[in-house]
């Protein structure tokens, strides 16, 4: 949720040309972007812990339903996974629009990414309600707790990503976004792609391994 301060990219470019001086960092990567990379490194371990917990309790289903093809609605979840993966594509398009300074497409793609993400989260909520009706409560078994914790944590991450996307979208409406700040879109994109990749793992571990 970075803010664009200077409203004019040319100012930045002119400045660079004039002074031969950029905001130099030792790595050449901006502080914000590096911070996001570092943060995502930490997130890997968070999901690593949750996925391990799920794997440990996968077969501990007590009297409740277990992770089986009959219980999961694989086609439904595959469809919503596809929606989430498509949102990575629109995110890429948003970033490239931002780099080109194409305001209109930037807005369109940001909004589509957020929309696709929302479709995924809605699908997840719907799926949860179905599972609960079919007898898989939060407290039913170690499997159920681990399942909801892992997918729930991921869902919260997607939701935070949607908020970041919408905040960026609102900044473009307010005219605070410009090609010099394409990096903001890129950083949101880093987070978004990460959350998508994590879902690929989760989908494999929970649904495909069922």
């Amino acid at each position, binding site marked *: 949720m970075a803010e664009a301060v*200077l409203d004019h990219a040319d*100012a930045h470019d*002119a400045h660079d040309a004039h002074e031969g001086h950029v*905001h130099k960092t030792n790595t050449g990567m901006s502080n914000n972007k590096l911070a996001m990379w570092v943060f995502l490194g*930490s997130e890997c371990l968070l999901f690593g*812990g949750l996925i391990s*917990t799920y794997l440990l309790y996968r077969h*501990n289903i007590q009297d409740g339903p277990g992770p089986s093809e009959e219980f999961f609605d694989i086609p439904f979840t595959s469809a919503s996974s596809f929606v989430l993966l498509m949102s990575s594509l629109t995110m890429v398009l948003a970033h490239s629009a931002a780099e080109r300074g194409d305001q209109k497409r930037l807005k369109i793609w940001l909004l589509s990414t957020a929309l696709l993400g929302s479709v995924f989260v809605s699908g997840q909520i719907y799926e949860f309600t179905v599972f609960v009706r079919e007898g898989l409560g939060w407290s039913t078994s170690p499997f159920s707790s681990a399942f909801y914790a892992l997918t729930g944590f991921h869902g919260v991450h997607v939701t935070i990503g949607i908020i970041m996307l919408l905040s960026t979208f609102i900044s473009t409406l307010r005219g605070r976004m410009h090609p010099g700040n394409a990096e903001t879109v890129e950083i949101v994109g880093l987070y978004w792609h990460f959350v998508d990749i994590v879902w690929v793992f989760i989908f494999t571990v929970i649904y495909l391994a069922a």
Partner: protein
Amino acid sequence: MAIIENPLELESGDVVRVAERPLGVLTRPSGNTGWQSWLFTVDHKRIGIMYGAFAMFFFLIGGLEALAIRLQLAVPNGKILSPETYNQVFTMHGVTMIFLVIMPLAAAFANYLLPLQLGARDVAFPRMNALSLWVFLAGGIFLCSSLFIGGWFENVPNGGWFNYAPNSGTLFSPTKGIDFYAIGLQILGIASLVSAINLIVTTLNMRAEGMSLMRMPVLSWMLLVVQFLLLFALPVITVALFLLMFDRLWGANFFNVEMGADPLLWQHLFWIFGHPEVYILILPSFGIISEVIPVFSRKPIFGYSFMVGSGIAIGFLGWGVWAHHMFVSGIGPISVAAFSVSTMMIAVPTGVKILNWVATMWGGRIQLTTAMLFAVGVVSMFTIGGLSGVTHAASAADTQQTDTYYIVAHFHYVIFGGALLGIFSGFYFWWPKMFGYKLNETWGKWNFWLQIVGFNLTFGPMHILGLQGMSRRIDSYDPGYGFELWNMVSSIGSFVIFAGVFIFLINVFVSKRQAEHLPPVGPDPWDARSLEWMTASPTPEHNFDTEIVIDSLDHFWHQKYGYDDDGNVVRIAYAEDVAHDGSATNVHLPSPSYWPIVLASGFPFVGYGLIYNYWLCAIGGFLIVGAIFGWVFEHPDDPDAAHGHHDDHGDDDGHDGHEVDEGTTENAEADLVTADSATDAGEASDG
């Protein structure tokens, strides 16, 4: 180079709009004096000092808890604490000392020294730095409030610092104590994670020109390794704490053995965090003494690259040894053998470090200042702790030692004898840099000797008690087992430690009083080597007057010393001549902000809310979300306060508006007029 403000560069005549405080509701804090200058500061040095001050406060609490434990155990059948209270006291002692004392004290040095040692103006994200501090304080207060909330010693964590399942479940621990533990540590984890990201980015991105990684002081290196350990270890315990919280608050089944849950899950998650945590505690101290020993041996550090390399190696190996805490939990002979070997391997890089410190001192002109005494104390005491650690690595021996006082002895030699003594060495060493006066050496020596003698009296006998079979975490013991003598010695020792710490506190005030009659300490009172000594004492708010260009390891030392024709070291300049005098004015610094402390204040509300009443969560959530909102819309720099600019302030939140070259002071003055009028012009045209 002159000070140039971006809008000046516009040759097209286009209007530059500076998006500025679109809400227009709140002005920024502006006070440079009084309590406001501390509460809303984003200055890494003030933040570092506050980290230290709060940690010392918690140190007193944790110390009193330790004394209560030793009073209880001084004689057989102690009656001072009930068994239940005893559990609470030793749990809080451990949690407090680890999370609220050693870690923040290391953070104090990291915050204060890292930017200085790297030649930077501040950390990468100054407001996030303030956030870490206040979230740490919020978490600490939250955790310690368990001592009296809902009744005196009613809801205190009582499961030990590692809080094993299933004892931590609501069945065996029905009070709110474990909830305070689970939520409190999560709040503290947020603080450490934010700080770790911030300091990693600072180290990787904000070093002065010429300061390549292999020219960084060993302390900076060790702090960097620690931040990476925090970065990867914290999420693991976060998972564990979340799962525990889910179990306790909302009936999940992660540790519910009735449902067939596996209690070893907690042990694995906890120790995957817990062993790297040991290095998180000790490596800053290793870094500190790696600065102190060369200065007082009048020699460069022996084997710099080996020092750095062994620190990194410890950081890596530290991830593959966690199950040595679980040798008796039934993980199977192959796991035990593997972790036994990997644990012994870690003694190698540690041994490299110890030998390098000794080699640094070897043949040096040693000055036994208090800082140096504490540093030598670390080398010797940590060696004892390290050796008893190797005896745990041998799993057959460990089976006998597990859960006895031998373990308690071992980790106190490591954490007290290693980490804490190193931090005291750092106090004496950097005190003049931080506060402008030296701590008194006579009181300092009393402090050291009382602390080291008291320490060995307290924890040395615990080796014997442990080998005799005395269990840890028992609230009393019967007479006739041969435990009486050494427990009494240990309890007496703990009061000697207390006297030593008390003398340190006296020393702080006595020395301040005495310093009024002494000449100022100058930039470099110890004739030291690293960059923080190259500016005035106490460090001016802007750190360095001009940007420094580094051309070697120990750059500052090489400014002072050269070689004559015979290759002998000769002084070529005095510190006062090469160090900055701190007189630069008009250096633009990151502006203070209300939001970090507001944001942090939301977390305890969420915590109490989860335990007692969800409405409190709403208040906490409102504070957090509101503060994030205010934060995002706040210009990282306050243009109203813009009087000359520089380019080294943090790059908070993608801000790239004030991009300027650092100039000499005179040029800065000369160009101020243009810079300011440019800012004004920018604002005037703000749509």
